[in-house]
């Protein structure tokens, strides 16, 4: 407490200094308003030098080429099997009916009828809507990339687990990697590999490794010591210990890692359309750019269905507990699922042979909901256009532009001091230094104005998201059933690739700042709702009973008991929310913003690695700064509450 009081004193002093800097902006020298020339360091050039050294002198190019040749070969194999690209082994395409039946059986075997219908139905929808080829292009990349990521993640996690020193090095790298926006990964890959499916697959592999490492490491550490001791006493060698005791016991965590890898793969592969990856993402991008709403809704539904299917299947696999089978003498009863699957596949192949419709649904046979959707949307839009127009006008003139101008007006020294004050208030000198270091680096990168626009977009979006999300969550948490339903919706919404969120907002607001903010708001609101409900739900009932016994009203209960106890959990949501909005702002850049995202897109099209990575790091530092502050704050709150 005494320590906190001292923090508060210094923080107030710093705050006063920041306000002073703002008030006396008029008499400040130019060098204190914007980062002066001498402060801006040519990071981009340095990175480019390093990369060209790696590329030309170190012969890394040869290594990456070799690796990408392997990936390309695998991509060709899956492409042949999934959609009949004429490459070795020239067996494909597998009829869609067979794949749909297989998906159904997988769902049924893992969880039951419902999951079977969801996963089988997804593929039936894709086929009937005539999107088979695009979806399979997308899926073939996931099929190749996910195993690479999983194996890479496993190996790195085992190494980190064995050597604490390696873990210490790996941890900060993972933190940065997980806060780098998607595009920052693409630029170096384009430099080394070029554009196209191969590059898409490789960027997907790299992007989805970090969560696998994190989850595996977590799992390996959670294995009970007695299990390991029992295996040692059974005379296991180190290798046996790892492969037969430790890794299998960490199965659930590892499979949750696999689930995350697959979801990351899907998100990335959709975005990889920006570097020429064909498939659903590319189609969606084209349709959105030409404002074909109905058709993009169709693709959007497909992507959502795929996301839900992949997520549910892998989660069901991860959570599945081993169960003994009733002893049964006959081979047929023991393997009945396998037999049913084989029979269904045979029927599928047979049908496909006789009726080509079951092999591949051609474009002209395909169903489409685009017409009705467009008509409905036209109608709807005509109806609500006055509202959206007004909202757009209001937001742009009264909120967005004034806020943006205010952020840009701030002298950079004032921002740094303000952050120092915030850091000091939350975590003392160390946090203050961390804040100043992160933003100091952003100032030194030379992208101050762009960065401030990104900051403003994120701040305004998270603010609006909080205004919408917290009342919703409070309302939701009042009734356990309702809370359960809302959580299910949030969980599902979190599995959607971020790109999807752009469809409805473009539909409603067109292509402009408001659309970006709207997309970010929705995307950022999901974790806020989710964690607020979780936090409120997990308040210990004894506390509520105790408060009730002391005669608290509902409002007092909320303000003095439930919200304070839920705060640490809500902060986790806020953290994710900021992270998500940063990513979304960058992705939404192609709609047209003037922030770091736009510059990153330019760097991508001119394959400027240095610039791209500098911008990426700038975004990552914003994320890491928020993460640091919120984590510290949540820790102090938790300690104060004794939980």
């Amino acid at each position, binding site marked *: 407490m005494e320590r906190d009081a001292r923090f508060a004193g210094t923080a107030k002093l710093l705050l006063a200094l920041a306000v002073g800097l703002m008030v006396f902006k008029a008499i400040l020298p130019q060098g204190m308003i914007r980062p002066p020339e001498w402060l801006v360091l040519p990071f981009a050039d340095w990175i480019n030098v390093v990369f060209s050294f790696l590329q030309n002198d170190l012969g890394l190019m040869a290594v990456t080429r070799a690796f990408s040749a392997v990936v390309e070969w695998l991509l060709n194999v899956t492409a042949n099997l999934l959609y009949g690209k004429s490459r070795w082994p020239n067996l494909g395409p597998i009829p869609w009916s067979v794949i749909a039946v297989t998906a159904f059986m997988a769902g049924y075997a893992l969880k039951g009828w419902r999951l079977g219908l969801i996963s089988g139905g997804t593929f039936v929808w894709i086929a009937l809507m005539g999107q088979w080829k695009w979806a399979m292009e997308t899926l073939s990349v996931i099929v190749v990339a996910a195993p690479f990521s999983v194996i890479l993640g496993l190996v790195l996690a085992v190494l980190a687990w064995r050597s604490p020193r390696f873990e210490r090095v790996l941890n900060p790298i993972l933190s940065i990697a997980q806060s780098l926006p998607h595009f920052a990964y693409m630029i170096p890959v384009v430099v080394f590999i070029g554009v196209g499916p191969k590059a898409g697959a490789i960027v997907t592999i790299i992007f989805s490794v970090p969560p696998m490492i994190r989850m595996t490491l977590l799992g390996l550490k959670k294995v009970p010591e*007695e299990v390991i001791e029992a*295996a040692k006493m*059974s*005379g296991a060698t180190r290798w*046996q210990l790892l492969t*037969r005791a430790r890794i*299998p016991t960490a199965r659930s965590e590892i499979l949750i890692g696999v689930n995350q890898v697959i979801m990351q793969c899907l998100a990335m592969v959709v975005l990889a359309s920006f570097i020429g990856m064909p498939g659903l993402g590319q189609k969606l991008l084209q349709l959105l750019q030409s404002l074909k709403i109905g058709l993009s809704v169709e693709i959007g539904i497909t992507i959502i269905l795929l996301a839900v299917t992949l997520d549910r299947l892998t989660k069901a696999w991860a959570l599945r*507990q*081993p*169960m003994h089978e009733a002893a049964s003498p006959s081979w047929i009863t023991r393997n009945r699922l396998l037999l049913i699957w084989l029979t269904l596949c045979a029927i599928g192949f047979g049908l496909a042979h006789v009726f080509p419709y079951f092999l591949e649904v051609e474009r002209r046979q395909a169903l489409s909901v685009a017409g009705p959707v467009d008509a409905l949307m036209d109608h709807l839009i005509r109806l609500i256009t006055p509202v959206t127009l007004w909202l757009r006008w209001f937001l742009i003139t009264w909120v967005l532009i004034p806020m943006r101008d205010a952020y840009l007006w701030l002298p950079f020294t004032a921002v740094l001091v303000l952050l120092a004050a915030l850091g000091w208030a939350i975590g003392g000198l160390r946090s203050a230094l961390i804040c100043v270091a992160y933003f100091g680096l952003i100032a030194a990168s030379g992208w101050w104005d762009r960065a401030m626009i990104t900051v403003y977009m994120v701040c305004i979006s998270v603010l609006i998201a909080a205004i919408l999300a917290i009342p919703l969550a409070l309302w939701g948490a009042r009734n356990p059933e309702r809370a359960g339903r809302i959580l299910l919706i949030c969980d599902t919404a979190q599995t959607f690739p971020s790109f999807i969120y752009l469809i409805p907002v473009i539909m409603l607001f067109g292509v402009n700042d408001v659309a970006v903010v709207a997309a970010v708001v929705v995307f950022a609101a999901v974790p806020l709702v989710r964690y607020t409900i979780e936090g409120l739900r997990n308040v210990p009932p004894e506390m509520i009973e105790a408060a009730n016994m002391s005669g608290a009203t509902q409002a007092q209960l909320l303000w003095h008991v439930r919200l304070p106890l839920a705060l640490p959990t809500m902060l986790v949501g806020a953290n994710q929310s900021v992270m998500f909005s940063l990513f979304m702002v960058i992705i939404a850049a192609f709609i047209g913003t003037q922030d770091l995202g736009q510059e990153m897109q330019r760097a991508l099209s001119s394959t400027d690695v240095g610039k791209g990575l500098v911008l990426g790091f700038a975004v990552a530092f914003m994320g890491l700064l928020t993460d640091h502050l919120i984590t510290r704050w949540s820790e102090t709150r938790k300690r104060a509450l004794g939980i």
Partner: protein
Amino acid sequence: MTESVISCHNVSKIFGPNPAQHLANLKADPSLTQAGYVHAVREVNLEIRRGEMLVVMGLSGSGKSTLVRCLSRLIEITGGTVTVEGRDIATLSEPDLIDLRRRKMGMVFQSFGLLPHRSVLENVAFPLEMRGQDRATRYSRAREMLELVGLKGREDYFPRELSGGQQQRVGIARSLAVEPDIWFLDEPFSALDPLIRREMQDEFLRLKGMMNKTIVFITHDFDEALRLADRIAIMKDGRIEQCDTPDKIVLHPATDYVAKFTSEIDRARVVHIGSLVRPLTAPPSGEPVPAHRTIRDLARQLISDPRVEIPVINAQGAVIGSVLRQAALDVLLGDAQ
């Protein structure tokens, strides 16, 4: 009978960043305590004889688990030596150590330590699998072991589908699958409900009677210790306060701590006639009593017997001395010493 299988000489275990340094510092200043260091086992000297059952007991945190892990080198000791069958185990190479565990040792754990992804049968066969035995042999041996512990018919179950007592039976079967000479049990029944615990103790005594193993059994439950032990070692703060037969421990506690520990105990249940025996002063007269019975067992007879001195016979029926009725009654009525 007196050959020692495991012997500990001045064994110490310190947890902390630099244990060896801390041990050296302790030599200079024995009362040293330093943040970050836990002295879990202190200067333990112990001989464990072939075929005996030694129960190590003490409150939780007294270093029992650490000590037993030092005996199998699951934990590297900081000071002293542990010798198993004449070999200093600290000097064993990794393959030798693995070989020792594969052939000589079995261990049962408090929270069972079963592999959750393997069926009961595969869990029991695990040590055999490590030894590289083929599938058919190891499964048939595992079935045999499961039958022995009364789990026939549950071979295909997974650990989480069994109750705590059943899981511990699996743990016992696994530890016995390789027919170890030395059997370690670290609080095997502490996680179980009292009723099941009793049942498992009986089961354990049955198994013990069927084989001739050296057993180190850990418990924090004195009743359990008394029920099972040949000898009891009582630990406190990493030290062994006393290591002796149950009779001696209750009749002649070495320290105040041990005395306090045993004060609540019904001595008559523990003390055998044999431990009160003294040389005959007169020729034996009348019906003798057997040495291996407890005073409680013979309470009725002791109270009504008119003799001052009652002759005692051993298991073979030979007279080995006599017991003073008054001494036995003192134990029975709780005012010995």
